[in-house]
């Protein structure tokens, strides 16, 4: 019986053991929640902006690659699903969510931009700059246009907030908060903030966040650990809460203005709510209700959706905490979600030469796997006779991040793409040496590729561009020839395109649009069929050898099997859809990122997500909700009958620490790439000191 734990000598390639220039874990800097579409935009310290679809099981459906010069400090949504960001390079950038590129960048001419806020009506944009100026922009249908400057202040404007009526704004700076009248642009009030709660301090008090409520209250959070309530009509302090010994760095208010959330540098997130003073009085006051400690480092961004508190910070986790009182149905959906690992595959494998290609923000690493000649029983870790070898460290030129990369199955070609360029390299292996040769003059239409895939025989290259088209390139010895471009089909772009090619080289599948998964006939260069659209985005795609069954995994953990030659779902797929997946399978909170197959066992499908890997044996019966999903290996002294009775199709193994990649190298070897959480934490910047009794 081929259970998951047996019959493999796993050669572990540990990505964390490698020397790197840049930190591999990129912290979160800003989050912005869009109520209409229930989407969350997250920007990281390297300039990457990711879009998470909270209704699609919190799946990261789109992303915009980062850029070295873009140090994003503010992110916000405007009317009509338009996304803007601003940063220390002084530019306001608008993102095109359909074409998946940057529409334009406008220089605000105020120096580095620290904060940005969209007006409540959605048609005006305000930025706070390094030189102390607050600039107003008008949002036109296709661009933004500078309108005027407000009164210039002495120090940099670090936070901004509009009054819900759009008549006043609050701007937090260093040691003071200003209130401006929008019509005149002049400062109406200037409220000085104490540097320390009832004390004197040499360090300046930085107002990290402000929020303006409709009753005229301004809430400010600052670096002394205080949350203060101000009255904007008189410009006076109403209430003072000292909640932390370190900076309080972010604040977000709910739409109903009855609760808000703040994040501190110690990693704690506090929830404040407006509650009545006594049970039947109408007078209300703000009370700190719940603390949450889900982060270890600074929480630099928080957001408040109607039902959940969202926080993200330097420790790179995105935490979504549904609020019990707001959730209607108390099922698994109301559980805490912590998104740590990428939702797409960053590692590709060359099975013939046992090579792994790791993709980082600014470089690629090529490793040859070690090997062992020892044998053992199930569950043993065998010693390596030959260590894993770091063959290549390929740095990208220029400030842009790498979007996607791939290595061909034969190991002779490496391709990767950035926003402005596409790179293709030919590798030559002589004994133990490896030499690299770049193929020059790659066509311009290949840049900004979202997904790159080589055919099984390594003669063709498939590239999915961000404009929606699919390009086929034939690879020749040291050069290439453009074969064909499949034009974008109708339908809006829902998520990043994923590609899969059949081992016999006849079929190409592409996902990402609202129309469904398209299957193209490569030999005849035309569209063969389209798998019916499903309302959750595709997270992984693969075509099985011989049978040419297309296996699709969606973000709601559904797995479909579609027969390409027959143009319909397979019998097995219908059966499992009718019965439904096991409830524990559906409750997994990380998406399936890779699917592969065993060359000699057509009934097996291998797939994995961040915390488990599973072999689905289609010949075995399907589990129903009453059977144990995570079947441990039955003890050997049990009789065969019992073993057969408890066996079911889903063989799941959780023995590996967080998995980034897992694939079958040959019939007897699996490769798994782990990313232990401790390694991520070890590379993070310093956290706030916590004093504990007895240490």
């Amino acid at each position, binding site marked *: 019986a081929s259970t998951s734990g047996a019959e493999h000598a796993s050669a572990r390639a540990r990505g964390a053991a490698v020397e790197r220039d840049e930190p591999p874990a990129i912290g979160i800097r800003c989050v912005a929640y869009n109520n209409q579409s229930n989407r969350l935009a997250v920007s990281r310290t390297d300039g990457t902006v990711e879009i998470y679809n909270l209704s699609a099981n919190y799946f990261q459906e789109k992303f915009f690659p980062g850029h070295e010069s873009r140090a994003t400090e503010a992110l916000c949504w405007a009317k009509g699903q338009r996304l803007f960001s601003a940063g220390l390079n002084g530019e306001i950038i608008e993102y095109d969510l359909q074409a998946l590129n940057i529409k334009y960048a406008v220089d605000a001419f105020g120096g580095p931009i*620290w904060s940005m806020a969209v007006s409540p009506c959605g048609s005006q944009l305000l930025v706070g700059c390094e030189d102390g100026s607050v600039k107003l922009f008008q949002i036109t249908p296709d661009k933004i246009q500078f309108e005027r400057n407000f009164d210039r202040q002495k120090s940099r404007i670090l936070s901004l907030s509009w009054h819900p009526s759009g008549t006043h704004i609050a701007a937090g700076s260093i040691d003071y908060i200003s209130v401006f009248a929008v019509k005149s642009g002049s400062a109406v009030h200037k409220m000085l903030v104490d540097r320390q709660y009832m004390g004197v301090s040499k360090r300046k008090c930085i107002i990290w966040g402000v929020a303006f409520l409709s009753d005229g209250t301004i809430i400010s959070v600052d670096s002394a650990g205080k949350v203060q309530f101000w009255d904007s009509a008189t410009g006076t302090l109403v209430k003072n809460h000292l909640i932390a010994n370190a900076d309080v760095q972010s604040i977000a208010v709910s739409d109903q203005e009855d609760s808000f959330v703040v994040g501190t540098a110690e990693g704690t997130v506090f929830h404040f709510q407006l509650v009545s003073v006594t049970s039947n009085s109408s007078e209300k006051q703000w009370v700190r209700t719940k603390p949450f400690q889900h982060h270890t480092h600074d929480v630099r961004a928080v957001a408040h959706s109607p039902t959940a508190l969202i926080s993200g910070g330097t420790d790179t986790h995105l935490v979504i905490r549904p609020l019990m009182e707001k959730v209607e149905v108390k099922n698994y959906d109301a559980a805490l979600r912590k998104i740590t690992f990428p939702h797409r595959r960053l590692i590709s494998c060359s099975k013939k030469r046992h090579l792994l290609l790791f993709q980082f923000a600014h470089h690629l690493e090529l490793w040859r796997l070690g090997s062992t000649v020892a044998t053992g029983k199930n569950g043993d870790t065998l010693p390596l006779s030959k260590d894993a070898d770091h063959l290549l460290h390929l740095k990208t030129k220029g400030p842009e991040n790498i979007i996607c990369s791939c290595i061909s199955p034969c190991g002779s070609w490496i391709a990767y793409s950035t926003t402005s360029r596409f790179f293709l390299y030919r590798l030559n292996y002589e004994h133990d040496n490896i030499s690299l040769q770049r193929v020059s003059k790659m066509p311009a239409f290949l840049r900004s590729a979202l997904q790159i895939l080589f055919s099984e025989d390594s003669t063709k290259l498939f590239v999915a561009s961000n404009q929606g088209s699919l390009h086929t390139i034939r690879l020749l010895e040291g050069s290439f020839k453009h074969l064909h471009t499949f034009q974008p089909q109708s339908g809006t772009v829902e998520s990043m395109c994923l590609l899969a090619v059949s081992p016999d080289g006849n079929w190409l599948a592409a996902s990402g649009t609202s129309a469904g998964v398209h299957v193209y006939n490569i030999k005849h260069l035309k569209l063969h069929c389209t798998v019916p659209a499903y309302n959750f985005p595709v997270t992984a795609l693969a075509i099985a050898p011989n049978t040419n069954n297309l296996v699709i995994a969606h973000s709601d953990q559904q797995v479909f099997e579609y027969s390409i030659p027959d143009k319909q779902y397979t019998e097995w797929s219908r059966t499992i859809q009718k019965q439904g997946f096991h409830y524990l399978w559906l409750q997994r909170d990380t998406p399936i990122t890779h699917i592969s197959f065993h060359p000699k066992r057509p009934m097996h499908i291998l797939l994995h997500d961040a915390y488990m890997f599973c072999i689905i044996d289609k010949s075995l019966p399907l589990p129903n909700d009453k059977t144990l999903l995570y079947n441990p290996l039955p003890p050997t002294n049990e009789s065969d009958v019992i073993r057969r009775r408890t066996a079911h199709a889903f063989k799941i193994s959780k023995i590996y620490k967080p998995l980034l990649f897992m694939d079958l190298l040959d019939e007897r070897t699996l490769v798994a790439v782990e990313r232990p959480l401790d390694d991520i934490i070890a590379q993070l910047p310093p956290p706030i000191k916590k004093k504990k009794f007895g240490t």
Partner: protein
Amino acid sequence: MVQLRPRASRVPASATVDEGQPASEEEEEAGHGLLLGQPSSGAAAEPLEEDDEEGGDELDDEAPEELTFASAQAEAREEERRVRESVRRDKTLLKEKRKRREELFIEQKKRKLLPDNILEKLTTAGQTNIKKSSGKLKEANLQKENEDCDKGSDSKKAKVQKVQSVGQNKSYLALRLKDQDLRDSRQQAAKAFIQNSLYGPGTNRTTVNKFLSLENKRLPVKKAAAQFLNNAWGTQKKQNAKRFKRRWMVRKMKTSKK
């Protein structure tokens, strides 16, 4: 205060010509010594009296010679004047040098400028799009003027005005390199501000290792720190050992073959 000097310097006035001058000056200064506001007038009065008493006690070898306050003051003033003169001279020299350098730069700037006709074309092309973004352009121009005044001119870089959008040919966008430097320096300053306010002195930060080990310390059975081993320790030694081992193996194989 009395300024005591060793005897050697106090040569009698007749021996050298130089000494003649201070002597005469001394008499001058002594005259209007009282007009100047001496801060330690009380203390100054004493040495004068002493001097009068002792008078020409130059033959006494034991006690050092006492100078009158007036003479010392005169010498100090002389020093001051000399220093002032030299500083003034230096300043004028520097001023001249700077003036010459300015002129040189202006010359070079003039030489480096593009011919006037091209500049005219660029400015007119920029003006066609001025209506919409007039406020921004004005700011940009103001900024550029300020930069000009501040930095003089970097003669090595070509000066081309920033083009908003040229109507006919959109194939290029001319940028001033100086703007990029300014932008970079501002960005660096902003990053430094954030780094300082979050991780600088006065913030209560600790290392990741200490942070993770805090729990281990409080367990009922105390465990070691999260990163107990320092893997970076002795890397050179380890490398040397590895190399030696390899060489030894090779030698051993050779001898065993023989």
